[in-house]
């Protein structure tokens, strides 16, 4: 089924995560990070950081704090099994650290289809900010929906 173009402009629920050192160490382990400044607070401070820095791609995880993270996909009539991550970008404004409370505010900015509807694209922009409103990064996500039944 086609994603309704009226979806463009929709603000999705904001999510907030207080990033702690334990979660950052878990993330570092998961991506095989061996640089101690991402796991050892003293090493981070020696390198000039206020605390463990939040690594470049962890900012994508803030919006995943939504307890029902595929709800907005399902609400569009999309089967989440047929969703692929097409593109991801980050524009950085300032580094976040362990202890920061970060809020992700996602908004749908475009919807389009290709190959006669066999592939649909949803573009989502997410601002990540601190509790004081200061900007950490702006993210853009392109999600690809495969419609196996279309255009056959």
């Amino acid at each position, binding site marked *: 089924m086609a994603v309704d173009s009226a979806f463009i402009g929709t603000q999705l629920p904001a999510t907030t995560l207080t990033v702690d050192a334990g*979660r950052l160490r*878990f*993330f570092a*382990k*998961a*991506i*095989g*990070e061996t*640089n101690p400044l*991402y796991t050892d607070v003293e090493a981070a401070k020696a*390198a000039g950081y206020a605390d463990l*820095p939040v*690594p*470049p*791609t*962890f900012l*994508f*995880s803030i919006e*995943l*704090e939504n307890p029902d*993270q*595929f709800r907005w996909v399902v609400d569009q009539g999309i*089967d*989440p*099994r*047929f*969703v*692929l*991550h*097409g*593109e*991801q*970008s*980050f*524009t*950085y404004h300032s*580094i976040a650290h362990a202890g920061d409370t970060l809020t992700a505010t996602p908004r749908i900015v475009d919807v389009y289809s290709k190959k006669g509807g066999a592939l649909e694209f949803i573009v989502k922009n997410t601002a990540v900010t601190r509790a004081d409103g200061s900007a950490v990064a702006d993210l*853009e996500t392109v999600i690809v929906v495969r419609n*196996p039944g279309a255009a056959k």
Partner: protein
Amino acid sequence: MTWTQQIEVGTELPALKIGTISRTTLTLFAGASGDHNPMHIDIDVAKSAGLGDVFAHGMLSMGYLGRLLTDWVPQQRIRSYRVRFAAITPVLGQPTATGKVVSIDEVDGERRATLELAVTLADGTVTLTGDAVVAL
């Protein structure tokens, strides 16, 4: 002369070879990243969608490429970073992250390098392409 002054168009970043991606890797990444999509951790769900097996999160490979960047420059110098996910990474894939400088410009009073980035599997499949802009 600092190391950043020696950087020029064509300079290659030291390649980052990643070990074999296991099911444990995917499970840890699902938990640590908060991406609980079962297509990456539950073979029954993957099969129900017509796939033979689970496959790695795109953001896992983007995380590896991020390590390539932060191994090369302090993180606060990264201005932007983006990728296109070109192919899925299967279980047991062996990615290598690479990058090279393709241009150097003066922007907002700072010298910035644009890097062309890729993640390639041992069989030659390019799974990610992208670019990053870093201040030198």
